């Protein structure tokens, strides 16, 4: 893992206060900079640096796949210990697998499948079952109460 990037107090304010609400205007950086009491160029430089150091994954929009006519699901596998890396490679090989995490549980591999066609989700899960010989547990979202990242640094 990379070392923790150093953030000063102004960087921290940017991270904490700009996790949404970036203006859709001709001069959005100037607008935000004014509200933070800093210069536009300073704001741009700081965001750019935090993207470079990895403190930020990116700067931009978070897109809702479902609103685009696609679908997303969370799925889990109980992978026998000796097969973990092999199965991870198979699962990760699907373009539609957006995230995959090892977790401490009998269901020890949890992955998000996102596709621009709803039907493709079921196909991918079926293909993963066929390729691994393991039962895929599908946990589609039934109701969304919150999504966002209110990280405070």
């Amino acid at each position, binding site marked *: 893992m990379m070392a923790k990037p150093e953030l000063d107090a102004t960087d921290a304010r940017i991270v904490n206060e700009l*996790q949404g609400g970036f203006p859709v205007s001709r001069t959005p950086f100037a607008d935000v900079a004014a509200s933070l009491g800093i210069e536009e160029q300073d704001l741009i430089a700081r965001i750019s640096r935090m993207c470079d150091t990895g403190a930020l994954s990116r700067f931009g929009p978070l897109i809702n796949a479902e609103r685009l006519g696609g679908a997303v699901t969370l799925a889990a596998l109980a992978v026998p210990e000796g097969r973990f890396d092999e199965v991870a490679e198979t*699962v990760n090989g699907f373009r539609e697998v957006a995230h995959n995490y090892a977790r401490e549980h009998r269901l020890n591999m949890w992955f998000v499948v996102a596709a621009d066609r709803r039907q493709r989700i079921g196909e991918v899960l079926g293909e993963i079952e066929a390729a691994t010989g393991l039962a895929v547990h599908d946990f589609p979202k039934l109701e969304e109460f*919150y999504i*966002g990242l209110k*990280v405070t640094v």
Partner: protein
Amino acid sequence: MKDDVSRLDDADRRILEAIQAGLPLCPHPYDAVADRLALEPADVIARVARLLKNGVIRRIGVVPNHYALGLAANGMSVWDVPDDAVAGIGHRVGALPFVSHCYRRPRHLPEWRYNLFAMVHGRSREEVEDKVGEIARLVGDADRAHEVLYSTRILKKTGLRIGA
């Protein structure tokens, strides 16, 4: 809901594809996008504002890398709460500042009894445990059982990408 897709035209999709990995870091980012796509800046701004309003874009801003920022402990807390209470509880749990995602998902009985998922981030497992304790207090008597599944490794993280 369903007609949102049909309301997206080619220009909307091209704009989303152009900005999904990041907005240009320059004083007039939407002008830069407009230039690249041969659209008018005012048109790009109006379309992005509409995509934001109708929820195709959830939000625009910094996307923190919580691992790089020291929030290395990530616990997926899962809760068995009565189905008729899950909506009210879900909204209250989702409103907690340390919960990044909160969803109702299906039970898979008998091996999986949990119907509410709340992702909790912290600097350490102890911090995540404290926060899960806070959720437990909020859920109160409706908490029939819960578990926390800690992540031990990120196996893949590319995120959603539309287009080719």
